[in-house]
Protein backbone atom coordinates (compact mmCIF):
# COMPACT_ATOMS: atom_id res chain seq x y z
CA UNK A 1 0.00 0.00 0.00
CA UNK A 2 2.79 2.36 1.01
CA UNK A 3 4.74 1.38 -2.09
CA UNK A 4 1.73 2.19 -4.25
CA UNK A 5 1.34 5.55 -2.52
CA UNK A 6 5.03 6.31 -3.05
CA UNK A 7 4.92 5.40 -6.73
CA UNK A 8 1.80 7.51 -7.16
CA UNK A 9 3.76 10.50 -5.83
CA UNK A 10 6.83 9.90 -8.03
CA UNK A 11 5.73 11.62 -11.29
CA UNK A 12 4.92 14.98 -9.67
CA UNK A 13 8.35 14.86 -7.95
CA UNK A 14 10.13 14.51 -11.27
CA UNK A 15 8.06 17.16 -12.95
CA UNK A 16 8.64 19.54 -10.01
CA UNK A 17 12.37 19.01 -10.38
CA UNK A 18 12.15 19.52 -14.13
CA UNK A 19 10.20 22.76 -13.60
CA UNK A 20 12.84 23.93 -11.13
CA UNK A 21 15.67 23.03 -13.49
CA UNK A 22 14.09 24.78 -16.50
CA UNK A 23 13.38 27.90 -14.46
CA UNK A 24 16.91 27.78 -13.03
CA UNK A 25 18.41 27.73 -16.52
CA UNK A 26 16.14 30.62 -17.55
CA UNK A 27 17.27 32.60 -14.49
CA UNK A 28 20.95 32.02 -15.32
CA UNK A 29 20.30 33.23 -18.88
CA UNK A 30 18.48 36.39 -17.80
CA UNK A 31 21.05 37.22 -15.10
CA UNK A 32 23.90 36.71 -17.59
CA UNK A 33 22.15 38.99 -20.12
CA UNK A 34 21.58 41.69 -17.47
CA UNK A 35 25.17 41.56 -16.27
CA UNK A 36 26.50 41.64 -19.83
CA UNK A 37 24.37 44.73 -20.38
CA UNK A 38 25.85 46.31 -17.24
CA UNK A 39 29.36 45.14 -18.16
CA UNK A 40 29.05 46.90 -21.50
CA UNK A 41 28.96 50.24 -19.64
CA UNK A 42 30.81 49.71 -16.38
CA UNK A 43 34.46 48.76 -16.01
CA UNK A 44 35.26 45.37 -14.50
CA UNK A 45 36.90 46.77 -11.39
CA UNK A 46 33.57 48.20 -10.23
CA UNK A 47 31.39 45.50 -11.75
CA UNK A 48 33.26 42.52 -10.23
CA UNK A 49 32.80 43.45 -6.54
CA UNK A 50 29.23 44.62 -7.26
CA UNK A 51 28.32 41.31 -8.93
CA UNK A 52 29.95 39.21 -6.19
CA UNK A 53 28.30 41.13 -3.34
CA UNK A 54 24.96 41.43 -5.20
CA UNK A 55 24.79 37.72 -5.97
CA UNK A 56 25.56 36.88 -2.35
CA UNK A 57 22.95 39.36 -1.09
CA UNK A 58 20.41 37.49 -3.20
CA UNK A 59 21.52 34.00 -2.23
CA UNK A 60 21.93 34.78 1.49
CA UNK A 61 18.23 35.59 1.84
CA UNK A 62 17.57 31.88 1.36
CA UNK A 63 19.16 31.21 4.73
CA UNK A 64 17.42 33.95 6.69
CA UNK A 65 14.46 32.55 8.61
Amino acid at each position, binding site marked *: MEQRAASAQAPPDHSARATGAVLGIAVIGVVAALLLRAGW*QVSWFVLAPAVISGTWVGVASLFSP
Partner: protein
Amino acid sequence: MLHTIRWMVEREPEAERHRARAEVLVLFLLGGLAGGALVGSVIALLARMIFYLSGSRPLLFLGAAAVVAAAYAGQAAAFWRVPRPQFHHQVPESWRNIFSRKVASFVYAAGLGTVFFTRLSSRAAYPLAILLLGIGRTPIAIIAIMASVGLVRASTSLVLPLLHLDRVSSDRIVMWIGSKNRIVQRLEMTVLVSVICLSAASILPRILLMG
Protein backbone atom coordinates in the same frame (compact mmCIF):
# COMPACT_ATOMS: atom_id res chain seq x y z
CA MET B 1 10.11 32.93 1.81
CA LEU B 2 10.33 29.15 1.53
CA HIS B 3 7.49 28.84 4.03
CA THR B 4 5.34 31.23 2.03
CA ILE B 5 5.75 29.39 -1.27
CA ARG B 6 5.24 26.02 0.39
CA TRP B 7 2.14 27.34 2.15
CA MET B 8 0.65 28.78 -1.05
CA VAL B 9 1.17 25.49 -2.91
CA GLU B 10 0.10 23.23 -0.04
CA ARG B 11 -3.24 24.95 0.45
CA GLU B 12 -4.28 23.98 -3.10
CA PRO B 13 -6.04 20.64 -3.70
CA GLU B 14 -3.59 17.80 -4.48
CA ALA B 15 -4.52 17.71 -8.19
CA GLU B 16 -3.89 21.45 -8.58
CA ARG B 17 -0.54 21.57 -6.78
CA HIS B 18 1.76 20.91 -9.74
CA ARG B 19 0.24 23.72 -11.80
CA ALA B 20 0.08 25.98 -8.74
CA ARG B 21 3.77 25.37 -7.98
CA ALA B 22 4.86 26.24 -11.51
CA GLU B 23 2.66 29.36 -11.54
CA VAL B 24 3.87 30.54 -8.14
CA LEU B 25 7.53 30.03 -9.05
CA VAL B 26 7.30 31.80 -12.43
CA LEU B 27 5.46 34.77 -10.93
CA PHE B 28 7.87 34.79 -8.02
CA LEU B 29 10.82 35.12 -10.41
CA LEU B 30 9.10 37.88 -12.41
CA GLY B 31 8.27 39.70 -9.19
CA GLY B 32 11.88 39.52 -8.00
CA LEU B 33 13.06 40.91 -11.34
CA ALA B 34 10.54 43.77 -11.20
CA GLY B 35 11.32 44.60 -7.55
CA GLY B 36 15.04 44.62 -8.26
CA ALA B 37 14.58 46.89 -11.28
CA LEU B 38 12.41 49.21 -9.18
CA VAL B 39 14.95 49.61 -6.38
CA GLY B 40 17.67 49.87 -9.06
CA SER B 41 15.79 52.85 -10.51
CA VAL B 42 15.68 54.54 -7.10
CA ILE B 43 19.44 53.98 -6.58
CA ALA B 44 20.12 55.12 -10.17
CA LEU B 45 18.26 58.35 -9.47
CA LEU B 46 20.32 59.02 -6.33
CA ALA B 47 23.54 58.03 -8.10
CA ARG B 48 22.70 60.32 -11.02
CA MET B 49 22.21 63.23 -8.61
CA ILE B 50 25.59 62.49 -7.00
CA PHE B 51 27.14 62.32 -10.47
CA TYR B 52 25.73 65.75 -11.40
CA LEU B 53 26.93 67.25 -8.12
CA SER B 54 30.42 65.80 -7.90
CA GLY B 55 31.21 64.21 -11.27
CA SER B 56 32.33 60.64 -11.88
CA ARG B 57 34.44 59.35 -8.97
CA PRO B 58 34.26 55.55 -9.09
CA LEU B 59 37.60 55.11 -7.28
CA LEU B 60 36.38 57.16 -4.31
CA PHE B 61 33.26 55.00 -3.99
CA LEU B 62 35.32 51.86 -4.54
CA GLY B 63 37.54 52.90 -1.62
CA ALA B 64 34.50 53.66 0.53
CA ALA B 65 32.99 50.25 -0.34
CA ALA B 66 36.27 48.56 0.66
CA VAL B 67 36.31 50.41 4.01
CA VAL B 68 32.68 49.49 4.72
CA ALA B 69 33.30 45.87 3.67
CA ALA B 70 36.31 45.77 6.04
CA ALA B 71 34.21 47.20 8.88
CA TYR B 72 31.50 44.55 8.39
CA ALA B 73 34.08 41.78 7.92
CA GLY B 74 35.46 42.78 11.33
CA GLN B 75 31.95 42.64 12.74
CA ALA B 76 31.37 39.21 11.18
CA ALA B 77 34.61 38.05 12.84
CA ALA B 78 33.36 39.48 16.17
CA PHE B 79 36.24 42.00 16.40
CA TRP B 80 33.94 44.99 16.87
CA ARG B 81 30.36 46.13 16.54
CA VAL B 82 29.11 48.16 13.59
CA PRO B 83 25.54 49.46 13.30
CA ARG B 84 23.50 47.84 10.53
CA PRO B 85 20.94 50.41 9.36
CA GLN B 86 18.01 48.63 7.72
CA PHE B 87 14.29 48.27 7.64
CA HIS B 88 13.32 45.77 10.31
CA HIS B 89 10.17 44.57 8.61
CA GLN B 90 10.03 41.76 6.10
CA VAL B 91 7.39 41.59 3.36
CA PRO B 92 4.03 41.37 5.21
CA GLU B 93 2.80 37.78 5.36
CA SER B 94 -0.78 39.04 5.25
CA TRP B 95 -0.26 39.79 1.53
CA ARG B 96 -0.61 36.11 0.77
CA ASN B 97 -4.10 36.16 2.30
CA ILE B 98 -5.22 39.48 0.88
CA PHE B 99 -4.29 38.83 -2.75
CA SER B 100 -4.99 35.92 -5.07
CA ARG B 101 -2.28 33.29 -5.46
CA LYS B 102 -0.91 34.81 -8.66
CA VAL B 103 -0.92 38.41 -7.44
CA ALA B 104 0.46 37.44 -4.03
CA SER B 105 3.36 35.56 -5.61
CA PHE B 106 4.31 38.50 -7.82
CA VAL B 107 3.84 41.21 -5.19
CA TYR B 108 5.54 39.23 -2.42
CA ALA B 109 8.62 38.59 -4.59
CA ALA B 110 8.62 42.19 -5.84
CA GLY B 111 8.73 43.26 -2.19
CA LEU B 112 11.65 40.92 -1.53
CA GLY B 113 13.34 42.08 -4.75
CA THR B 114 13.50 45.64 -3.45
CA VAL B 115 16.28 44.27 -1.17
CA PHE B 116 17.17 47.51 0.64
CA PHE B 117 13.56 48.11 1.70
CA THR B 118 13.38 44.78 3.52
CA ARG B 119 15.37 43.22 6.35
CA LEU B 120 18.88 42.65 4.99
CA SER B 121 20.14 39.10 5.22
CA SER B 122 23.74 39.95 4.33
CA ARG B 123 26.24 42.65 5.33
CA ALA B 124 27.45 42.67 1.70
CA ALA B 125 24.41 44.83 0.86
CA TYR B 126 26.16 47.92 2.28
CA PRO B 127 29.28 47.88 0.08
CA LEU B 128 27.01 46.98 -2.86
CA ALA B 129 24.92 50.11 -2.30
CA ILE B 130 28.06 52.29 -2.14
CA LEU B 131 29.48 50.76 -5.32
CA LEU B 132 26.23 51.43 -7.17
CA LEU B 133 26.03 55.02 -5.94
CA GLY B 134 29.46 55.57 -7.50
CA ILE B 135 28.40 54.68 -11.05
CA GLY B 136 25.76 57.35 -11.58
CA ARG B 137 27.15 58.00 -15.07
CA THR B 138 25.55 54.69 -16.15
CA PRO B 139 22.07 54.43 -14.56
CA ILE B 140 20.97 51.59 -16.86
CA ALA B 141 23.83 49.48 -15.53
CA ILE B 142 22.65 50.12 -11.95
CA ILE B 143 19.12 49.01 -12.86
CA ALA B 144 20.46 45.92 -14.66
CA ILE B 145 22.63 44.94 -11.66
CA MET B 146 19.81 45.39 -9.14
CA ALA B 147 17.32 43.57 -11.40
CA SER B 148 19.70 40.62 -11.44
CA VAL B 149 20.07 40.82 -7.62
CA GLY B 150 16.26 40.80 -7.26
CA LEU B 151 15.99 37.88 -9.66
CA VAL B 152 18.72 35.91 -7.85
CA ARG B 153 16.96 36.58 -4.54
CA ALA B 154 13.67 35.30 -5.93
CA SER B 155 15.35 32.36 -7.66
CA THR B 156 16.43 30.92 -4.31
CA SER B 157 12.81 29.72 -4.17
CA LEU B 158 13.82 27.12 -6.78
CA VAL B 159 15.46 25.05 -4.03
CA LEU B 160 11.93 24.02 -3.06
CA PRO B 161 11.27 21.84 -6.13
CA LEU B 162 14.93 20.98 -6.69
CA LEU B 163 15.52 19.69 -3.14
CA HIS B 164 11.92 18.53 -2.61
CA LEU B 165 11.57 20.93 0.31
CA ASP B 166 7.99 21.66 -0.73
CA ARG B 167 7.05 18.21 0.57
CA VAL B 168 8.53 18.56 4.04
CA SER B 169 7.21 20.26 7.16
CA SER B 170 8.04 23.83 8.18
CA ASP B 171 10.16 22.49 11.01
CA ARG B 172 12.29 20.53 8.54
CA ILE B 173 12.81 23.70 6.48
CA VAL B 174 13.91 25.59 9.61
CA MET B 175 16.29 22.71 10.45
CA TRP B 176 17.64 22.71 6.89
CA ILE B 177 18.30 26.48 7.08
CA GLY B 178 19.94 26.10 10.51
CA SER B 179 22.21 23.31 9.27
CA LYS B 180 23.77 25.71 6.74
CA ASN B 181 24.62 28.37 9.33
CA ARG B 182 28.36 27.76 9.45
CA ILE B 183 28.85 27.68 5.68
CA VAL B 184 26.73 30.83 5.32
CA GLN B 185 29.00 32.68 7.77
CA ARG B 186 32.08 31.55 5.87
CA LEU B 187 30.63 32.61 2.52
CA GLU B 188 29.62 35.98 3.98
CA MET B 189 33.20 36.57 5.13
CA THR B 190 34.59 35.38 1.77
CA VAL B 191 32.39 37.83 -0.12
CA LEU B 192 33.33 40.77 2.14
CA VAL B 193 37.05 39.95 1.83
CA SER B 194 36.65 39.59 -1.97
CA VAL B 195 35.15 43.08 -2.15
CA ILE B 196 38.08 44.47 -0.13
CA CYS B 197 40.68 42.66 -2.26
CA LEU B 198 39.12 43.53 -5.62
CA SER B 199 38.71 47.16 -4.61
CA ALA B 200 42.28 47.35 -3.32
CA ALA B 201 43.57 45.70 -6.51
CA SER B 202 41.89 48.45 -8.53
CA ILE B 203 42.82 51.40 -6.33
CA LEU B 204 46.40 50.67 -5.25
CA PRO B 205 48.02 50.55 -8.74
CA ARG B 206 46.43 53.91 -9.58
CA ILE B 207 47.66 55.46 -6.32
CA LEU B 208 51.17 54.07 -6.93
CA LEU B 209 51.13 55.40 -10.51
CA MET B 210 50.10 58.86 -9.28
CA GLY B 211 52.86 58.79 -6.64
